[in-house]
């Protein structure tokens, strides 16, 4: 069983998706436990994969014992082993918290929800673990289609937002497919490792150039990199709470992972940096994303929409790290993949909890919230501090490496963008925190008796993942040095 863990990571959620459907028809209450079991198993398998990679090096798993480049291969190295653990952990946390959220928001559709939820996670895990270009397309579409469906059952405005997402997403996936096609025509191979060996001889070819361009645009669409982010705010705002909590931390990060793979593993770094100034372009788009995301977030009064724009900015950070194309920048980017996943998990779950208890997401409605939901709001403060980048939360450490990388590359504009965005984030979060914690009084009222507001914290199944995420933000920050020296140092693509 154990040597099969790479396959299990993906296959278990897939099979359990159908089991959830079957058992769910029999009795609705079964689908939740089945989901939890599936994701726990998957999480354990991914930990085993990462452990194996750390101790014995890259895993090459041949599906059906067909050798590449004819068979499909799952490759787990430090980079995707790391991301596998993150994806399975975050999905498990969201699944645990989804029980109450789904009961409240989608009571008749529980069974179908969990089925598609599991398929979505299958898609993500498959994208991360596969070593075959076309296989990645398949999983990409599995994830995307599940995503369109999950988003469409949200609140008012969700179907339309999902339709828009569908259009954009399909263009992105089709561009990716075109890229794969062009590469196949030129090289005859679909296997990533194989391609990385065959391609260098062909770098002067125009076909490769077009393929590369298609890849970049397609993946940028999926990753919501400015200016191709347009689908994201609407889609994530109107989606059901559990869905945005699942998609926000993961979809964009998995997209970023694909970009790193294509830029640095399939194509050599020197291709992406010197032959075609892809990383330079990426850097500028990223800088735009960071500023644009923060500025537009300022204009929102709906907290969830504000978070969606902040997410656009966070994607910008990761893309900036990739665009800097040096060791520190890439370390910052990979570290930020982890940090952002945990931060967005915390933030979107918190919004879910607030919606669950009060049904209102506007900033002014948050008054007294720190008394009604003390633990949730405390975690909101911690998550906010992390987005701003205040030590010792994890967000600070990824910013540290990103700024280091920008200085190494002598890109002072990016340094300024990174630092200014911290200040913009301060305004964003303190608006919320002020409203939630401080209650303006007209004159100095010194009464020791406070407005009697009963504590109505989020239910335990929702609160626990929020607290875990909050604790994660703090501890992952302090442990950054350890994480980098044991995992990320090797995850940064060779050549840096």
């Amino acid at each position, binding site marked *: 069983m154990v040597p099969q863990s790479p396959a299990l990571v993906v296959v278990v959620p897939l099979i359990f998706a159908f089991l959830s459907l079957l058992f769910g028809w029999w009795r609705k209450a079964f689908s939740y436990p089945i989901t939890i079991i599936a994701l726990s198993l998957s999480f354990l398998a991914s930990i085993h994969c990462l452990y194996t990679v750390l101790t014995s090096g890259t895993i090459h798993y041949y599906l059906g014992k067909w050798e590449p480049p004819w068979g499909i291969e799952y490759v787990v190295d430090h980079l995707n082993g790391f991301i596998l653990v993150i994806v399975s952990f975050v999905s498990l946390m969201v699944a645990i918290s989804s029980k109450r959220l789904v009961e409240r928001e989608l009571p008749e559709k529980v069974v179908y929800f969990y089925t598609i939820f599991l398929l979505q996670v299958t898609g993500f895990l498959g994208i991360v673990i596969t070593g075959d270009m076309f296989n990645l397309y398949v999983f990409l579409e599995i994830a995307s289609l599940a995503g369109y469906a999950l988003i469409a059952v949200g609140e008012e405005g969700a179907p339309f937002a999902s339709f828009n997402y569908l259009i954009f997403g399909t263009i992105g996936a089709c561009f990716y497919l075109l890229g794969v096609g062009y590469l196949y025509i030129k090289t005859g191979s679909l296997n990533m490792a194989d391609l990385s060996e065959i391609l260098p001889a062909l770098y002067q070819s125009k076909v490769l150039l077009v393929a590369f361009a298609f890849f970049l645009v397609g993946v940028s669409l999926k990753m919501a990199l400015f200016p191709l982010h347009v689908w994201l705010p609407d889609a994530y705002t109107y989606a059901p709470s559990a869905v945005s909590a699942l998609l926000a931390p993961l979809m964009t990060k998995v997209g970023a992972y694909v970009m790193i793979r294509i830029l640095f593993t399939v194509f050599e770094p020197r291709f992406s940096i010197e032959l075609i100034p892809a990383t330079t372009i990426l850097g500028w788009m990223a800088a735009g994303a960071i500023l644009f995301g923060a500025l537009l977030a300022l204009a929102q009064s709906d907290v969830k929409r504000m978070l969606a724009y902040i997410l656009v900015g966070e994607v910008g950070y990761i893309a900036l790290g990739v665009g800097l194309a040096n060791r520190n920048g890439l370390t910052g980017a990979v570290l930020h993949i982890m940090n952002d996943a945990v931060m967005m998990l915390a933030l979107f779950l918190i919004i879910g909890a607030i919606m669950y208890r009060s049904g209102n997401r506007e900033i002014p409605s948050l008054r007294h919230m720190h008394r009604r939901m003390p633990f949730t709001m405390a975690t909101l403060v911690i998550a906010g501090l992390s987005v701003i980048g205040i030590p010792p939360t994890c967000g600070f450490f990824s910013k540290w490496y990103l700024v280091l990388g920008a200085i190494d590359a002598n890109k002072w504009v990016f340094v300024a963008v990174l630092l200014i965005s911290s200040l913009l984030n301060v305004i964003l979060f303190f608006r919320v925190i002020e409203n939630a914690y401080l209650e303006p009084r007209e004159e*100095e009222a010194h009464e020791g008796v406070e407005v009697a507001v009963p504590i109505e914290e989020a239910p335990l199944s929702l609160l626990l993942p929020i607290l875990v995420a909050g604790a994660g933000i703090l501890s992952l920050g302090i442990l950054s040095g350890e994480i980098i020296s044991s995992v990320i140092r090797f995850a940064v693509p060779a050549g840096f």
Partner: protein
Amino acid sequence: METMVSIRPLLAVLVTLIGAMLILFTGERNRNLREFWTILASVLKFSLVLSMIPFVLRGKMLEFTIIQLAPGVALQFRVDQFGLFFGILASALWIATSVYSIGYVRGLNEHAQTRYFFNFALCLSATMGIAFAGNLLTLFIFYEILTVSTYPLVAHKETEDAIMGGRKYLAYTLTAGVVILFGIIFVYTLTGTLDFKPGGFLLGHGSSATIIFLFAILILGFGVKAAIMPLHEWLPTAMIAPTPVSALLHAVAVVKAGVFGCLRIILYVFGPELLHQLDLWLILAYFAAFTVIVSGLYALAQDNLKRRLAFSTINNLSIIVMGAALLSPSAITGSIFHMGSHGFMKITLFFVAGAIYVKTHKENISQLDGIGRQMPLTMGAFAIGAMGIAGTPPICGFISKWYLAMGALEAKEVVFLFVLLISALLDVAYFFPIIYNSFFKAPKEDVNPHFDEASMKMVVPLVITATISLILGLVPNAFFRFFNIASMAAEKILGGM
């Protein structure tokens, strides 16, 4: 310089952190228990700090590494003389402030008391972390924690003004934080390390232009908390906070942390040799001197007692920076010692302001005529503190001002001697009338001509701090060789050249 591994610095930081959690969980259910945690934590912390003195006096440094954060930089405590000095100051004054706070908060029946004490404890943890930090990154981490945990205290009253005050505070300090971060990362790219070394470690790295640029932004960044003009604006506005907050934080913890940061930059990162090479010391000294004079003039113009004290604080902070900038042995000694003596004296003055407010709800100096009859202990302490700040013997302020004056002569810049004299004259000008009016003028109608002090919980601490100021003035080395620690630090810095 020997280093010893010891967990004491970590414990000193953790004590108040655990205390803060206990305060949070005890909450409103049992106020006395909650206050007990505060006092217990403060006493434990002070004892821990005291226990480190013998080692440091013998020239050892106490070190404790928690975890590696980046190549060459760890989350690390290293207690040297300068750090220990600040630690003693902060932890000693915290005991006094805790008692005082309890009296103040209960006397006014304040709202959100648990939040108040929780944040208070967090601030002290952060201050200890700053004092004992062994490198720039550790210092920065705790510096930012200090900013975040003081914000709820500044905005505590939750009135329109308090919220605006809080916002301004955040705007200034977080922007400064970003600037400092940029500086720190830059230093890291230049040298690959961030550890403090007496005498500095930047010598020989980077071009002159880079060094000058770095110095400017780092001093400006730390200078916000140290209230160097023109970055001082947040401090008078932050006086909207409850008085114990103003007392501890804005006379001791926050602003002293800023000055501490500045001094670390001047003496332990850049160092006398580098600064002499580029003549940066003179520029900084003039800059600080400007603040000294102008803030003194501003103080004269204030009628609100706390605001006048705020400007006096700004005045003294720049005196400390000016002294350090002069880079001569007596100046550095005087500067470090002034951190301590000013702390004790200023906290006395703020305690007095708070006691007056709780008892009589008066905030302005013009209302204070004759109040010395009603509150002789309080105003007596005020007199001691105020005269000490002006530099009158035998209060401790005299000792620090004496050394600073010597330092100016040693540095062969007589200008600064005059600056010190002028500032002393201004001090007398804005403090003496208060003392005179309160004791010798006829009491206003609402003043009780008989002995009617504020609650003992408030009066006892302020009498104690005033007495300490007096004792330190007479015997600077009382209390565990307080003065020696400062002079040892100065020697190490200059000896490390």
